């Protein structure tokens, strides 16, 4: 086991622990904060996979922005006291459905891991300008999809503003 492997397992354990914290904590704000730690752990895994750009975008977008939005949303809708806002559901049906879903997901992941061959061949020569390659792909070959996604997001933003502020009645 090399040093890189050790770092990977350390980060993976950290990520899993944080994810468990999200599920197990009875305070929903704590859950949200654990979620941020999970995002950061995932970013660390991206780093060990030699994908710094992806890792940093993960930090910027998920840990920085999405998590804050989640916390804001929680604060807006939270009506119970914070310390018991995220308790386990006593309802059996939902418990069953949730377990089923989680089991299905895990099974799928394991299955995919078993049938695919590990393809860890480097995309480019080692130490190449990964960001440059990524940029060329995004703004070259996949530019239409990229722009379409951008327009979609813009529309979503406009829609959200209209929903939040309301339209003046004429």
């Amino acid at each position, binding site marked *: 086991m090399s040093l890189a492997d050790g770092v990977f397992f350390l980060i993976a354990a950290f990520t899993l622990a944080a994810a468990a914290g999200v599920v197990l904590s009875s305070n929903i*704000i704590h859950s949200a904060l654990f979620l941020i730690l999970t995002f950061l752990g995932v970013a660390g895994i991206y780093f060990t996979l030699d994908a*710094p750009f992806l890792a*940093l975008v993960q*930090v910027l977008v998920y840990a*920085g922005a999405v998590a*804050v939005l989640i916390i804001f949303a929680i*604060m807006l809708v939270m009506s119970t006291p*914070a310390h018991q806002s995220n308790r386990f559901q006593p309802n059996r049906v939902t418990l069953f459905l949730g377990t089923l879903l989680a089991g299905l997901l895990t099974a799928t992941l394991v299955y995919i891991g078993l049938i695919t061959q590990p393809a860890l061949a480097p995309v480019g020569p080692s130490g190449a300008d990964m*960001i*440059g390659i990524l940029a060329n792909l995004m703004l070259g070959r996949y530019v239409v999809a990229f722009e379409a996604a951008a327009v979609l997001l813009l529309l979503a933003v406009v829609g959200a503003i209209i929903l939040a502020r309301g339209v003046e009645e004429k």
Partner: protein
Amino acid sequence: MERLILDIAHLLVSWLTGRGMAPVWADLLLLLLQWGTVLAIVTLNVLILIWLERKVSGFIQERLGPNRLGPFGVFQTIADTLKLLTKEDIIPTQTDRWIFKTAPMFFIIVAVMLYAVIPMGQDMAIVDLSAGLLFFISVGALSTICILMAGWGSNNKWSLLGAMRSVAQMISYEIPLAFSLLGVVMITGTLNLGEIVKAQDKVWFFVLQPLAFLTYFIAATAELNRGPFDMPEAEQELTAGAYTEYTGMRWALFFLAEYTNLVAVSALMATVFFGGWQGPLLPSWIWIIIKTYLIMLVFMWLKWTFPRIRMDHLMSFSWKVLIPISLINIVITGIGIKFIQGMGW
């Protein structure tokens, strides 16, 4: 002189490996040493900066500033630190204890992490990351969450208001901050800070990208929560905003982190817009120190001159002025690059 620090590091590594230590462990030890140095620099810098800030504010207000402890009062900050260390650590009963306690720690960790990518001299970045600039922006964004944690955990209306303001402000100002740096990235074609510095050997980007510099300067002031944009503290309105309930060392950690951020952002500004460590005669690591301190003096000058902006003005200023300006800057830069390429220069 120029390679003094690098030579010491190399000597250390070769000495350790010569003694039979595996290179991996020697490198790890060197990394630890580097972080130790960064922490020492950070702490020392904060001591100097707090003293400097008081001196600058004193001079601006026709006072002397601290002048009792040591020559020109240089030991005043040390005395204050000792005072803060010995103060009672008060945690109000109704707080969310874990969040309340960990917020200042995360804040300082995030602030120190910024130093990983700053080239503190020729070949003197701790991590020569290919996406260094992006690292700086994205890790800097994490401090938002720490202030939010502090504000929420304090269970105080003033704190929560300060935290909400700070979060709104930081999320808004992250956009012009990143956009303004895009112009530089477009010219150099890289996110690596070392290469950005090397690209400025003829002309500083401050000259090539004045609009971007202005936008970045304003957005950085807002990111740093410094006056006139010091919304999370805003002591005249929010008593002390997100930090209202903190005492003693926990409060000092926030203070420390804010000044650490100030140094980091000023160093980045020097790196991206003022040629980084490049300069004649003196060693590179002295040049970056000089440039960083000059930029910080300007920050202090602004803080002690201007009143605080109102929250909604702040937001509309970001969305209606700074973001359009930074977008225009990107367009102008793009046209300029195409034009120059077309001319075949």
